[in-house]
Structure formats: C-alpha cells, structure tokens
C-alpha cells in the first residue's frame, strides 16, 4: 500500500532530479520526498475519517463524561478521552478551569492534559506507517500509563493548594449547547474543515521534521548515533529527555526524526524518551499553564514527566531486543 510512495520518490529523486542513490544527498532527498508524500496523503485521509465520526466530541462533552466518576475511573477515562479529543494547547487554560470548576479531580484534569497532546490519531497514524505497529502500541500504552500515574500522583500529594487561588473563585457559565452535525453531508463538510484547519496548522512542522529526519538519514555517518547515543552510553536517555524540552513540535514533526534515529541504531527506549519529551514537555505549554498553576506545581508536573520519560527510556532499552 505504501509502495506507491517509494516508487514516486524513486522516480523523482533518481529520474527527474538525476541524483545517485549511493550519495548522501540522493539518500536524503529520497527520504524527504517519500516521507512528505506519504505523511500528507495519510494526514488528509486520517483526519477526514476521524472528522466524520467525532464532529460531536468536544471538551465540553468530555467534562460531562468525567463528572461524578470515582477517582481511578476518572483517570482512565481522562487519558482515554484525552487521546481521542481534538484539543489545541492554547485552550489549556479555559479547559483546566472548566474541568476543575465542575468538580473533576485535579489529577484527572492533569491526566487529560498529559495524554491529549501525546496521543492522538495523527500521531498513531504516523507511527503506524513509519515505525510499525509494535512501537505504536508501545508508545500509546506508555503514554496512557504515564497519564494515569501522573494524575494519581498529583491527587495523592494533594496539590490543589498549588493551583492559583483565583481559579477556585471563577464562576463558569452554562456551557453552550453543541451544534450537531447530523446529515452525512454536514459531517463531510465538518471533516473537510478539520483537514484544512489541522493540516494548515501543522504542515510546517511536518516539513521541518521530515527535513531534519532526511538530513540525519543522509548526512550523519552510520555509526555516529550508535557511538554517542547507543546502548553503551547510560546518559543518553536523560540527555534525550533534556534535549526534547526546548524543541517544541507536535507528534507529527517528531515521528520522521524518530524514524531516522532508529535507522541509525539509536535504541528504542532512547527514541521513545526523546519523542515523549518533545511532545509533552514543552516550554510554551508550561508558560500557558503558569496562568492557572503555581510555579511549584509546574515544577512537580515537569519533574514527574521528565522522570517518567527517563524511566520509560531505560525500561525499553533494557527489555527490547
């Protein structure tokens, strides 16, 4: 099914551009063309199909599902719903206040905020195509566990006192009733709107990610990463997590980079740690959340995620292969 993209990249790189497959630039350009065409074809398809089904699922709806659940049920539902609900990080603050005000445990709210950017249909589709189903399952399962445990930890420590005081005083108005998209035609229009909105927002990250992946693929010597970030270097995992913080990309941009790193012999755990850190531990997200969380709480949040990702890295480096 994906062979058509390899064929296309062969024709364009070696035929039209006349590059040699054995050269670095030939290899990089081939990687770039193949991944870019594959990713965009996939993005459009997946976002459209998901759009058809979820025109009804919104954060407001999620809040209704979570209200009044027991703690652990709320954590699991929060990460599950976080994975399938469309949500942009610029909405973190209103979403946070709306959830907390509705009496949803702080931990469940944070679990939602951890899982939502990390796991989404775009990331899953890309992982499946580029890295295979095993790594995809691993990534999703780990993301869900990190979210659930994070929520439990925050409630266990009783961190409500580190939420900015004004949050508890805000009165949330009645939620507006969601407009339904009932007819198939209306759903298709909605889904197409999703495609142009999401692709319009992330296409640059995709190009950057694939460009970086292509450069790694073509120009970095085969043994470079194996020597510096291979299984022999115990500091590679924490370094991968630290390196991920200033890099702000969504899952779409980082997957091609991960593909190239794995191809260069970087161990699975190290690559997973880097991916999760890039996607879930980002400075802009922290700055946005600072509006509702005190600095100490952000410290615990970031510290927990960093520790969790390092653990994930070591764990999978140890058990994989």
């Amino acid at each position, binding site marked *: 099914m994906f062979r058509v993209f390899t064929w296309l990249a062969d024709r364009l790189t070696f035929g039209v551009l006349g590059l040699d497959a054995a050269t670095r630039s030939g290899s990089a350009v081939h990687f770039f063309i193949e991944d870019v065409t594959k990713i965009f074809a996939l993005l459009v398809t997946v976002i459209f199909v998901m759009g058809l089904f979820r025109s009804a699922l919104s954060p407001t709806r999620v809040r209704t599902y979570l209200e009044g659940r027991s703690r652990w049920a709320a954590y699991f539902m929060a990460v599950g719903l976080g994975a399938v609900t469309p949500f942009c990080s*610029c909405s973190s603050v209103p979403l946070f206040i709306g959830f907390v005000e509705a009496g949803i445990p702080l931990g469940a709210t944070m679990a939602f905020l951890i899982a939502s950017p990390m796991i989404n249909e775009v990331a899953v589709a890309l992982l499946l195509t580029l890295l295979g189903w095993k790594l995809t399952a691993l990534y999703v399962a780990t993301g869900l566990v990190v979210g659930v445990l994070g929520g439990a930890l925050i409630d266990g420590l009783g961190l409500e006192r580190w939420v900015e005081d004004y949050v508890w005083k805000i009165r949330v108005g009645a939620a507006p009733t969601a407009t339904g998209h009932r007819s198939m035609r209306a759903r298709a229009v909605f889904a197409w709107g999703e495609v142009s909105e999401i692709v319009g927002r992330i296409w640059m990250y995709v190009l950057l990610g694939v460009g970086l992946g292509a450069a790694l693929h073509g120009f970095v010597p085969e043994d470079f990463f194996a020597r510096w970030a291979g299984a022999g270097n115990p500091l590679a995992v924490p370094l991968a997590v630290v390196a991920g913080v200033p890099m702000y990309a969504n899952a779409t941009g980082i997957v091609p980079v991960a593909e190239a790193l794995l191809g260069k012999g970087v161990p699975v755990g190290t690559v997973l740690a880097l991916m999760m850190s890039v996607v879930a531990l980002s400075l802009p997200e922290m700055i946005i959340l600072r509006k509702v969380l005190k600095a100490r709480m952000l410290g615990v949040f970031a510290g927990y995620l960093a520790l969790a990702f390092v653990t994930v890295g070591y764990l999978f480096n140890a058990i994989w292969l």
Partner: protein
Amino acid sequence: MKAIKVLGSGCRSCELTARLVEEEARALGVDVSVEKVTDMAEIMAYGVLSTPGVVVDGQVVHAGGVPRHETVRDWLTAS
C-alpha cells in the same frame, strides 16, 4: 449593530477569528463591533472550554477552532 466578542487568550487562532469576522462584516456591509476578550474570568463566564469562542449579541455561537467563512456570514446576516 451587532456586538461580537472573540474569546481567547491571544493565540493565533483567536487573532485569525477576529480578523475573519471583521473582514466578512466589511464584505457584507454589516455594522459590527468586534471586541477581543482575553480575561479568563470573563471567558469562563460564557462557559466556553475551548478557544477561540465567539459571542454574538451576548449569545455563544462557537467554541474551539477558527470558524468557517460561511458560518461567520450566517452570524452576520441572521437578524
């Protein structure tokens, strides 16, 4: 005149939404006042969980994502 409020913390999508409403209003020749609301307490008072949200004459008509051109036109032409 229609009083339109765009609710959002100043993210890109919120800017786009405000600009879209202004452009459509100008194109249709509808008299509007567009106000960007960034105060979180006020945004929450409308019950909007995902931004940008749009309020037309005190009524929440949209939440989450940049609205479509046709949708904006519907708000502006509805009496």
